[in-house]
């Protein structure tokens, strides 16, 4: 796997992501600065990591979404290349137009930083093939603006086309109001674009990949991507 991790001022989960990718794929990812106008040759996964790009000024992800490197990411995604955005990366992908909708302030107004449970809605995608459909995984979240919202028609399309891949749920997999930590529409934690090659998610799978982290439930996402790319190659 030749992964490229985008780096913007204020991004702070880029090293966590690089460590997780190295651990699971065996290959050191390339770190790509915001001002670059192209991605490294042979890139087969672009990751937009979490953090606070540009201090969350204006709107979360708004300024990073307009950086030169994002034009290269748009071209790459248009050709079917895989793009994964986590946390601030999800916000950046929404602001850049690569994913529909927007991440609003958490309904409870508080910054949320703890483990959550996610239900994997399907296993037949590059981003979920490391899991079983219906499987519940535990991963951390750390965000103040993770409340996914979109107009009614967009939500209907996302649901109708099976594009919600991860949903907040209870420990035993029940999707309800109590487990919907930030008030997101339909308890959405992660969605893909219409072509299925761009995933945005608020939780941090890269922070649950080693025993020392207390949980390795996040590994499946990366292992699945590695499998998918090996099969495609």
């Amino acid at each position, binding site marked *: 796997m030749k992964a490229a991790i985008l780096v913007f001022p204020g991004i702070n989960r880029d090293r966590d992501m690089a460590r997780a990718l190295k651990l699971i794929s065996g290959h050191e990812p390339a770190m790509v600065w915001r001002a670059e106008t192209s991605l490294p040759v042979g890139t087969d996964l672009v990751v937009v990591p979490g953090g606070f790009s540009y201090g969350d000024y204006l709107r979360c992800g708004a300024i990073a979404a*307009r950086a030169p490197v994002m034009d290269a990411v748009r071209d790459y995604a248009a050709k079917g290349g895989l793009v994964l955005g986590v946390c601030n990366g999800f916000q950046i992908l929404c602001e850049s137009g690569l994913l529909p909708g*927007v991440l609003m302030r958490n309904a409870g*107004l508080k910054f949320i930083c703890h483990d959550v449970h996610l239900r994997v809605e399907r296993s037949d995608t590059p981003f979920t093939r490391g899991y079983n459909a219906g499987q519940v995984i535990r991963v951390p979240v750390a965000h103040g603006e993770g409340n996914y*919202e*979109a107009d009614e028609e967009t939500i209907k399309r996302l649901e109708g086309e099976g594009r919600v891949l991860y949903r907040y749920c209870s420990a035993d997999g029940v999707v309800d109001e109590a487990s919907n930590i930030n008030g997101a529409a339909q308890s959405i934690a992660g969605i893909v674009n219409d072509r299925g090659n761009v995933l945005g998610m608020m939780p941090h799978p890269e922070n649950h990949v080693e025993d020392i982290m207390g949980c390795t439930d996040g590994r499946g996402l990366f292992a699945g991507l590695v499998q998918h790319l090996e099969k495609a190659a």
Partner: protein
Amino acid sequence: MKARVTVTLKTGILDPQGKAIEGALKSLGVDGVASVRQGKVFDIELAGADKAKAEVVLKEAADKLLANTVIENYRVELL
């Protein structure tokens, strides 16, 4: 030339910050507040004095960056 771009949330978009401000005003005993919606104001200094051109520039700024038109409306004023 001075200009102002005002960005507000579209009707129907949940505004938890506005709700919190509304609650704070009520707890301060400010009477008669029915509801609060918050937004952003950008005061912009423009080079040149062509009003028509200025409006085009401001609209471009709002569409490209200042507002997320999925959830926000904006208004451009030349001052």
